């Protein structure tokens, strides 16, 4: 679902970084923290207020992996696919999430609850394989636990 963008809020973010284009990345990080993604009106505002071409804004927004131009789900599932996790079965974990949620990597479930993504390394390699859901780190996940993890978060909604 597209978010309703409060341009005042975007202006505040721009102001807090002194409207300096050198801080374009932190500004975008702050905006994304608000909306879970980078809404187009906010990007237009950045371009306008910083007086830079929109190509420069979109170049940065598409280069860095943390930025998303699409709205994300309430719970963002990150399956770590770092080397240690890969060896301990991360591909099987990612497959199980895809199967259980019925979406591909970078997809969002129809009810807007889950977004599935993979991440290069969460730096919790000793706990491999690792899955992060929003701020919670789940260590030593096995493919049979995937369903339980999904159910636990789905139940929270109610």
């Amino acid at each position, binding site marked *: 679902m597209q978010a309703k963008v409060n341009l005042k809020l975007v202006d505040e973010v721009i102001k807090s970084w002194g409207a300096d284009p050198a801080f374009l990345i932190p500004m975008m990080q702050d905006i994304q923290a608000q909306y879970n993604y980078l809404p187009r009106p906010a990007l237009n505002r950045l371009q306008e207020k910083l007086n830079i071409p929109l190509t420069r804004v979109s170049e940065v927004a598409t280069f860095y992996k943390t930025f998303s131009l699409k709205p994300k789900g309430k719970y963002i599932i990150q399956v770590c696919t770092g080397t240690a996790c890969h060896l301990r079965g991360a591909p*099987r974990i990612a497959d199980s999430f895809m199967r259980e949620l019925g979406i591909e990597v970078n997809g969002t479930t129809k009810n807007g609850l889950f977004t599935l993504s993979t991440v290069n390394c969460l730096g919790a*390699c000793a706990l491999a394989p690792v899955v992060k859901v929003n701020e919670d780190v789940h260590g030593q996940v096995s493919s049979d636990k995937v369903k339980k993890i999904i159910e636990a978060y789905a139940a929270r909604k109610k």
Partner: protein
Amino acid sequence: MKINSLADLESVKSKALAASAAMEKTVIVCGGTGCLSYGSAELASALERKIKDRKLNAKVMLKMSGCHGFCERGPIVVIEPDKIYYQRVGRRDKEKAAEELVETTLVQGKVVESFLYSDPVTKERMIDYYKIPFYAKQKRIALRNSGHINPADIDDYIATGGYAALVKALAMKPEAVIEEIKKSNLRGRGGGGYPTGRKWESTRKAEGPVKYIICNGDEGDPGAFMDRSIMEGDPHTVLEGMVIAAYAIAKGKAPAHGFIYVRHEYPLAVKNLTKAIEQAREHGLLGKNILNSGFDFDLRINRGGGAFVCGESSALMRSLEGRVGEPRAKYVHATEKGLWDQPTNLNNVETYACLPEIIVKGADWFASIGTKGSKGTKVFSLVGKVNNTGLVEVPMGIPLREIVFDIGGGIRKGKKFKAVQTGGPSGGVIPDSMIDLPVDFDELTRVGSMMGSGGLIVMDEEDCMVDVAYYFVKFLEEESCGKCVPCREGLRRMRQIFDRITTGNGNPDDMVMLEELCTAMKLGSLCGLGQTAANPVMSTINYFRSEYEAHIKDKKCPAGVCKALIAYMIDPESCTGCQLCVKNCPSGAIKGVKKKPHTIDKEICIKCGVCYDVCKFDSVKRK
């Protein structure tokens, strides 16, 4: 309180030491990312309540520390001064564990047997922190405080001798500081291994209206987390190292500014560093007129955007400028024209963390550790198929065998050791025949791998070397910034070849083509990412050629990994008929009745591997 002199620092130190000496015991709960995921924060609050209930507040100090390194054993609790090491404390029940710990250890003065570490081989239970094999063979310089001090408390850092190096350095001439670092032979811990002192000297010599000091905390190598632990567990040591570097590099009226570039995936590191920066400013250790010496230096944190290539120094600088992280050619030295085209010194987190100790203990002390070409210690993240996974800091030159088998406790589930992968996507694999290799910068490069930032990933007989190379190629294809053709196109072609090989469609020419692409990328790529991208492929071809041949000629994956080339089956001898796999199979491919061996219908099986994961008797085989 502002610290203006050595005397001020000493007084903060003695006050902090007196406060902890007044306590009978200190309970240190690990608050690193690993232990936190096992609920160490809840454990700490349960302990706090119980300590209060038993009115032990005046005798017992409770604190949260950074990472102990032995993350797999979390939550870890250490009781000082007795050096009691408790592990896996309250994984299931925090309340009960806290109760037991407080009653038995703090009130009755006895150890809780069930929290003790037991050796995976001898089964012997151990109490003493430093006698546990995982720690006994380590030598900690960069990690000296991690796990011991509270990262949110500057006094705790000062109590262990923190900021004494800064006082000492500011009393020296900047040139003398550089000389000392040069004499120590410290080489950059970020991967390249460039001598730190020489880099400083070039940056100092370069003329410019401003100088930049950057800390590279964009630890992108998958399977490596040493910088994360240092930033989380001992942020002040990074700051102290950076101020020392800034002092040595600044010249005349040119001001120096600092940046710490932290990976987006490390929120706790950002939090702890932010707090540390505030405290250092309050204490007059950052900002204007540091330690009343007339020297000014301040720094800020930038969060990365999740691009692996930004770990490369010139790409990182472009990212700091608010641009796309594309590297540039290296004939322009960053020491002369780096960030915003000004003289810039960039070092890695671990490099900065070593500096205070070198200044305090002297270059000769540091140079006495390690090998001829590589001095000091190196932190490795020992992960993969070893029994003891975690962070280890060892002297340079230690045989690989000691890391894997003594510290790491050997291979999990009694499987056979196959190889070690070092250096992340820029490194290579080291086969079991080279297990006695002394680990240092030069030796690793000689055998076709590299030190990299320090990931050390252990692989066993069930790991396919073709799949490992494929994994890194896919990783790099995704992370290549696309600026230069050899890297962008070379990786894509390599990936396509691996697509074929791992699905049984490879042909004998594929290996020749892979080798050609490797050479071209090595010679033609712009930055380290592309130049070293061949290492995982070349080293696996060199040491495990027969495994490639098995995939290409026999259409078989001997390790049982490549999905298209294997089938899952159940060993009727060891299957107990427990029905666990039947219940968990998402496609209903497993048939069988209770207490009778089960079978997998290959026609229905989707090869998801769930049965393999759930089987408690190792009866599911991949062939």
